[in-house]
């Protein structure tokens, strides 16, 4: 078997860049899906539907952008879901005090907790998976404690503002969608055009070499978790806004997994050092449109949604693995 595969692959002069194919692969899949959906469902290409898809996926998109930074350094952040809940809940409480503080303090706190993640991981030289798992469990516990496991509603009058944060239109496009696009844009710029961005890739490519070449690897590792924490807190506030100013202590449950899935589908390797936020954006949209198509189709009951999502994720990663294997055999 192995030899047969080798023979086939090495006799065909394939020349491509695996990571490029991966990113383009997600892009091609997205285009194909959009073409299929627009031909099959007349409601798909309506502006209403498009805006809905974008809006529904904007928060997971924001979180996934943060996750991209982390995964680029070969890390992982399981705590984002709990930080979303914490961000939303704190924000809702603080509306009693001051609207501006209600926006700033929760994000500052989730950023700080991200920094704690990063510090423990980089200074303690500990596994990101476990450290952020502990953070995930611990923060969820804290959220439950401070809320008594009840939803928190913003102070009266603030709900309109929060509704705008989550749903309001600006130039015909919902506010969270603008926010996502802005964050993707900034992140793309940072990763591509700044020293911090390049060093993020360097750490993921080879931490030892980066360190020897003078990259402050520990600082980079701290900052990517700060970014992830910051964006999680922000997503939490928007999520509370989407529900009209109601923050739920169970918010963001399992979002870390959706975010990781989107990042991986978008072509960022869990092994670090390759990929980017544009891919992640595409990954988020792919997963979102798959759900949208299932809904538009309407023939499957809603229990099929996770099955199709799971199989779709599997199909994409299997194709990616196949491409990687071919590449490995070639070199």
């Amino acid at each position: 078997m192995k030899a047969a595969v080798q023979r086939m692959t090495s006799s065909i002069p394939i020349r491509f860049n695996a990571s490029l194919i991966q990113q383009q692969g997600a892009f091609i899949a997205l285009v194909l899906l959009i073409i299929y959906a627009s031909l099959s469902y007349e409601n798909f290409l309506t502006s209403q539907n498009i805006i809905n898809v974008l809006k529904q996926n904007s928060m997971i998109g924001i979180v996934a952008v943060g996750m991209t930074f982390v995964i680029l350094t070969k890390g992982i952040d399981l705590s984002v879901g709990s930080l979303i809940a914490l961000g939303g809940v704190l924000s809702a409480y603080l509306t009693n005090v001051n609207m501006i503080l209600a926006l700033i303090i929760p994000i500052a706190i989730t950023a700080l907790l991200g920094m704690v993640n990063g510090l423990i991981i980089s200074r303690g030289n500990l596994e990101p998976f476990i450290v952020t798992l502990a953070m995930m469990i611990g923060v969820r516990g804290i959220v439950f404690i401070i809320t008594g496991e009840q939803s928190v509603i913003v102070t009266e009058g603030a709900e309109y503002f929060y509704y705008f944060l989550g749903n309001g239109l600006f130039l015909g496009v919902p506010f969270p969608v603008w926010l996502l696009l802005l964050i993707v844009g900034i992140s793309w710029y940072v990763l591509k055009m700044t020293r911090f961005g390049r060093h993020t890739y360097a750490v993921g490519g080879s931490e030892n070499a980066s360190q020897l070449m003078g990259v402050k690897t520990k600082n980079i590792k701290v900052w990517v978790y700060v970014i992830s924490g910051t964006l999680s807190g922000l997503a939490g506030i928007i999520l509370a806004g989407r529900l009209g100013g109601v923050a739920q202590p169970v918010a963001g449950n399992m979002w870390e997994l959706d975010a990781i899935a989107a990042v991986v589908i978008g072509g960022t390797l869990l092994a670090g050092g390759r990929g980017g936020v544009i891919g992640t954006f595409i990954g988020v949209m792919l997963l979102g449109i798959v759900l949208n198509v299932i809904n538009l189709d309407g023939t499957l009951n809603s229990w099929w949604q996770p099955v199709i999502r799971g199989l779709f994720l599997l199909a994409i990663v299997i194709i990616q693995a196949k491409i990687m294997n071919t590449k490995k055999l070639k070199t």
Partner: protein
Amino acid sequence: MANSNAVVSETKLKKQTEFPLTKAILPAIILLLALFNVLVTENFFALQSLWNLLILISTTALVAIGMTLVIATGGIDLSVGSIMAVAAVTSTFLLETNLFILVAGTLGVCLLFGIFNGAVISYIGVQPIIATLAMMIAGRGLAQVATEGYLISFSNPAYGFIGKGSIAGIPVPVLILFIVAALIYTVVKHTTFGRYVEAIGDNERAANLAGINVKLVKLIVYSIAAVLAALAGLIETSRLAAADATRIGELIELDAIAAVVVGGTLMTGGRPYIWGTVMGALLMGLITVTFIMNDIPHPYSLVIKAFIIIGAIFVQRKK
């Protein structure tokens, strides 16, 4: 300290104090906590609560034992909770048959899921975390499709025996846990398979070159994890006398991973500590019980657990 992730490790400074957690600290903590309970918690020392505690942890511990093997090979299995759901639902389809067919059939179906996981990971080369994440999403989805999301309750004394019965005074789930733990421990300690699991986790490439069928070993490891998850699913379903595809085993993968880590097995792979894992699960269960019996709200135990996990990996981190 500043260079603790030393660029190139100097062979001579390796510390030899490995896994004190399993060897001494972990049992000590458990004993202390138990002692604390004996003194502070009312009715704690009644034999019944000991059994209850062990029954409580039996499902997590079973799942965690399978997870230990997976983690020892350097992998991870997020799908165990969903496989419990699949087991729960499958068993309800077999209620009309006898207990043997019910158990064998359920384990068999879940074994297929495990083989699928293992095949995708080892033969196709998908990262374990992603492959089992997909299975986690799809598996529970399938269980929900089969039940349309409804809770299926039943009355079946024979099936109930698995979760609620006892043999010679020992509750069946506890018995199952100890038999499984002893069995897997023996396999790990005394068989070639156990040696292979550890070698793969420590240096997969070298293991492969030493003639070990790495792919097959990995496939078996994920299969074992699935079967043990199915066993846990049967126990839980039997105890509830209902199959709840949505709730059963939810987040158990995290509890199991925590138990494994607290038990001393390294996340990066290497030697599996089966009894360490059982003790890890016991410690986590003991904390939960202590909090419940002393009327402390449950969320506080989550915070404590977070600190224990961090503490555990901090103590046994690689220098």
